[in-house]
């Protein structure tokens, strides 16, 4: 790590603090919405005829809140702390950063309201209507500008791998978000027919590939060597992981469309590159795990390190699942089932979400200058989320396999509903666990920022 501990830290870190709070607050909303939707799968008449509480309106709200409200905000908090630190300078403009936080929150709040009222473009991960799309793109552009100016003002010549990932993740997301939301068509936000599906899933997959994964990898690359008090294992693997991620991840969106009439050669590209994902994934993981080799004690003693390290294990699991699901033979069973929902939960909550939380808990003492308000609450939240996400993975995988195999052997969707009922019940109870954990997390983060005596309890 290239940091200068002697340099007095005069930065206010207002932007990082703002994103910490943003992430914690939207996590409550995101998990509450997810929990409510999960109950509705068990008790569909629960919310009666209240339009904005319909499962089908809550579903996109949950997904977008998790992606953009909770996880992206949490990772941005870390980015706004780590990038200036690594460059031995201060953020170019905290004012602009705070404005970005406000704009970001306005966009997310507008997303919640519009989706609740049924204003949607109806395309997964690209539901938000055009004015909000513009807000999101502007916010990312401000993030990019602010960080690029910080890079320009840097006192440290060498860019650490965290900086590569943050810069690339931001600029590439600006492009893929605009492309995937067909931002040049304000009315529909869509193309027509099969090309619409291809562009949608190109973007849909790159939300994970070019936004969440690079940001999360950036945080892991920062935290693990620091917690382990050791230099990064390999610069070469960093390079390999970084470039291969951008080359390979961008190819694979069409593996969502293997059973749809899209050009066969494109499916072949998607399947082959989905398997090739082993290169960026393992280059990154080997690099991190070799850095952490023999240092598990140090990691388990640091709440940020703990979240982040478990996040890398989840990344391993979600990547194996992802590569498997891209195989046409596996997909015959898993496509359209809860298996895919399980995959999404390991990826977004287990990997990017746990890393986001780890980042927040790691930087909080540094940006406030005081210890975390409560180590106990943070540890408690860690266990709740770990149990929750492992539980989600197990029940959703089982119910997905039940669905897929039943359909494949000729059962109708309707007849399989009673078979997956109990898994939906367990899924909802795990949702409650995650929701409660988000309340504890918010309380802890809020108290750490605003009402912290600074004593170690």
């Amino acid at each position: 790590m290239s940091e200068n501990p002697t340099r007095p830290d005069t930065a206010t870190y207002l932007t990082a603090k703002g994103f910490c709070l943003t992430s914690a607050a939207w996590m409550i909303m995101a998990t509450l919405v997810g929990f409510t939707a999960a109950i509705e799968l068990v008790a569909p008449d629960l919310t009666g005829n209240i339009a904005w509480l319909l499962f089908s309106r809550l579903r996109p709200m949950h997904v977008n809140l998790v992606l953009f409200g909770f996880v992206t905000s949490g990772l941005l908090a870390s980015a706004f702390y780590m990038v200036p630190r690594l460059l031995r300078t201060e953020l170019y403009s905290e004012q602009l950063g705070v404005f970005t936080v406000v704009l970001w929150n306005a966009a997310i709040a507008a997303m919640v309201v519009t989706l609740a009222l049924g204003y949607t473009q109806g395309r997964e991960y690209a539901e938000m209507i055009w004015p909000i799309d513009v807000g999101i793109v502007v916010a990312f552009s401000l993030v990019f500008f602010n960080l690029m100016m910080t890079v320009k003002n840097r006192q440290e010549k060498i860019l650490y791998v965290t900086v590569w990932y943050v810069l690339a993740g931001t600029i590439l997301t600006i492009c893929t978000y605009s492309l995937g939301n067909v931002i040049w068509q304000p009315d529909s936000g869509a193309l027509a027919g099969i090309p619409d599906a291809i562009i949608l899933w190109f973007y849909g997959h790159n939300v994970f590939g070019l936004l969440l994964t690079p940001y999360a990898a950036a945080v892991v690359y920062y935290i693990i060597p620091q917690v382990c008090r050791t230099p990064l294992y390999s610069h070469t693997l960093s390079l390999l992981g970084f470039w291969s991620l951008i080359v390979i991840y961008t190819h694979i969106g069409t593996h969502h469309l293997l059973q749809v009439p899209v050009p066969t050669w494109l499916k072949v590209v998607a399947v082959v590159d989905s398997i090739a994902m082993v290169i960026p994934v393992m280059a990154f993981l080997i690099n991190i795990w070799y850095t952490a080799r023999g240092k598990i004690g140090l990691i388990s003693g640091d709440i940020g390190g703990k979240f982040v390290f478990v996040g890398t294990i989840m990344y391993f699991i979600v990547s194996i699942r992802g590569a498997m699901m891209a195989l046409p033979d596996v997909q015959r069973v898993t496509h359209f089932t809860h298996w895919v929902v399980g995959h999404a939960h390991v990826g977004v909550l287990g990997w990017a979400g746990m890393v986001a939380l780890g980042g927040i808990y790691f930087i909080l003492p540094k940006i406030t200058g005081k210890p975390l308000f409560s180590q106990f609450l943070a540890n408690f939240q860690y266990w709740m989320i770990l149990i929750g996400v492992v539980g989600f993975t197990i029940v959703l995988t089982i119910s997905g396999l039940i669905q897929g195999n039943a359909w494949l052997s000729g059962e109708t969707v309707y007849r399989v509903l009673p078979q997956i009922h109990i898994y939906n019940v367990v899924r909802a109870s795990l949702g409650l666990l995650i929701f409660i954990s988000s309340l504890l997390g918010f309380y802890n983060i809020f108290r750490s920022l605003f009402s912290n005596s600074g004593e170690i309890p």
Partner: protein
Amino acid sequence: MKMTPAVVVIGSLIILFTVVSVVIILPYADTSKTIPSDLLRTRTVMEEKGRALYISNGCVYCHTQSIRSIDWGLGAERLAQAGDYLKDSPILLGSQRTGPDLSQEGGEHPDDWHQAHFTNPRYTRPLSIMPPFQFLKQDNLDMLIRYVQSLGLKNADLRMERQTLWKKRSVDAYESGVNENVAWLHENVPRGWREIPTPYPASEAGLARGEKIYQDFCFGCHGPVGDGMGPAQPFLYPPPLNFTILKGRGISGGIIYYQIMNGITGTAMPYFKRELESEKIWDVGNYIAKYFIDQIDADQEPKGIDAAYE
């Protein structure tokens, strides 16, 4: 390799644009030449408005419109073709199949079935976990039903013609009186089926299975005591059949079986051949015959070769 800001930013942008040209622009050149399929037609204004409601209420999160070669259920008769989707913007393939695929839903049921189903899905499908859509005002509901009835486009139109034709015939029969209605229903079952008594014995276990199936599939329309007064009844015309009137009117196990298997097009009675196989249909038929009709022909001749079970 020296990672300067320019290398990171411009390098990754170059990669992205290269990949976009391979996985977006190149396939676009390919797919933009797609020709319309045999079933493609333009949607009416009502259908388009209904489609907007389908999108704004998030139907796409549980219903796919993507029939695959491995599918068996609703719509599986026709494998999806690229030319089916030409007028879909956005395309509504879906990613989860919590409810059935709707590619070919148009004309599977008459409009009044949909009215009951949207009011509360459990009225027509007791095990459904779909949310109720009663909050949609009637004119919106009408548009949504028009869209759903157009799914499958030209194929849906053919099925809708069938629904309209048989709706008229079944209403005429219903309005001509109980005897005439029952006679009409029986007439429309092929002769061979009419004469077959239930080949399965009405065992205690079989009747218990029949009850379970009745509650999972039939209860919403025909009601808990088989008098046709289930919660869907107020929405349906002709109303669901009251089984208790069938006694002494020429009912047979074969007739019950055939009508459960094939449904009665034009009425809300769907076909269950995809969901229930032979033993399940005989079991629920026995249950209806024994408890609601009070006239059961199980254990009657001709029985043919003795069954190996029991």
